[in-house]
């Protein structure tokens, strides 16, 4: 009995050694705390349509009414182009490369739009802090909240929200 026990012990030892070697094999996958930006992240709502960054533009554009004007800027170097769709209460920017067009930025212009937490132009600064908590960056006249690669900025003048922008964070 003693001999077999010794042999099994050796076997386990071997496997343990293998496991420990494995430990340092783990990829340093320090994935930054990529919150689920797109699902639970920021969004802008306007008469029943929810607009999120990174979504296929086609779906949203068909849901919205036809834009007041549509404008393309072709950046021949990078081979893609930027589109600007102007609506009465907001401006919508998209990035187009090949046939894929993705929503890239939204600029709110009047109080018909509201954020996913129901804040719109004219809201009190205190309401913004109540809804979104402490701002990631506080400039003079602006509160900025960052989540993942997205950023929601409120322009504030004497305590009232006068502008809202939702865009991607560039390094």
């Amino acid at each position, binding site marked *: 009995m003693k001999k077999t026990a010794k042999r099994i012990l050796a076997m386990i030892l071997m496997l343990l050694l293998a496991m420990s070697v494995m430990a340092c094999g783990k990829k340093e996958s320090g994935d930054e705390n990529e919150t689920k930006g797109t699902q639970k992240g920021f969004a802008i709502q306007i008469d029943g349509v929810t607009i999120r960054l990174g979504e296929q533009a086609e779906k949203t554009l068909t849901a919205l009414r036809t834009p007041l004007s549509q404008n393309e*800027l072709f950046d021949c*170097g990078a081979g893609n182009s930027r589109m*600007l769709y102007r609506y009465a209460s907001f401006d919508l920017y998209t990035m187009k490369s090949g046939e894929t067009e993705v929503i890239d930025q939204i*600029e709110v212009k009047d109080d018909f739009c509201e954020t996913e937490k129901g804040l719109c132009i004219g809201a009190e600064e205190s309401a913004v802090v109540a809804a979104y908590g402490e701002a990631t960056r506080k400039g003079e006249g602006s509160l900025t909240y960052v989540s993942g690669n997205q950023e929601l900025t409120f322009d504030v003048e004497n305590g009232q929200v006068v502008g809202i922008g939702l*865009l991607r964070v560039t390094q």
Partner: protein
Amino acid sequence: MKKRILIAVCALLAMAILLGLLQALLMPKYRTNPEGALIGEYYAESGGHDVIFVGDCEVYESFIPAVLWKEYGISSYVRGSAQQLVWQSYYLLEETFRYEKPRAVVFNVLSLKYGTPQSEAFNRMTLDGMKWSTSKVSAILASMTEEESFVEYVFPLLRFHSRITSLTADDFRYAFSAPAVSLCGYLMQTGVKPMSEELASLEGPRLSDYTLPKTAMDYLEKMRVLCEENGCELILVKSPTNSWGYWWYDQWEEQIVEYAANHGLTYYNLIPLCEEIGIDWSKDTYDEGVHLNVYGAEKTSRYFGKLLTEQHGILDRRNESALASRWTERVTAYETQKKIMEEGNER
């Protein structure tokens, strides 16, 4: 044995020559997109310039050396190229000072918004034209994007080999020499595509970070020091064009004004001076306000020439016979090309 070595040497020699020919054949000739050929045209024309312009497309579409000479006797050359990044401008300047010592260098500040390499295509357009020197090597190393490799600059054949299946007559005709596409670096555009009222009212979209990238500002500083060492004045300029896609943000303006003030440089922002320059956005642009056409550029050059003579003491050298004869040739070339292109537009 000797026969074998002879055959080997001949074979290698033949292969080397063949590769040279193929490379000349396969290099893009930039006839349809002429902005790729600008940099290479400087070397035949180098020397005798008081003012050198460097920067991106806003430079080679806004300033016309022929007009500067005709109106003010200023001898100048434009070393601009498509999406020229600030470190590329710096190394181009470093190279230019080896050829000549201008009195002033004019740099368009819009390219300061890029802190990292942007696109391989534009890198090739700017760098392939340069002659080989330490400046070219450092420019390549500073500009290479992820997928590029240095050996593809040393042997462009490795990069452009796939063009073998799409060669055109131009590739054969211009394999070894090609007529200049620019007039002392100015790329003429005679088309007119007015900028609508609505388009003019648009502003650039919100940015998440308005500070100009540190790498870009460092190279601006290096450019300033380089000009000082070569006894020439660095003048900063922002061309009058300001479309929503290439918007000049006020926050950027503040940073450049502050930088110029701290270092005793003159900085001209031509955007607010459009009326004074006389620019009419329904006639003076060929792409709805993104760039000026020849008429807009003439007005800008006339305005800027006055500044150069009055503020920066650039002399009127129309009385020097050697220089004058060279420039009359260039001015006539300018005018004939303008006439041909205008007639071409009418048809």
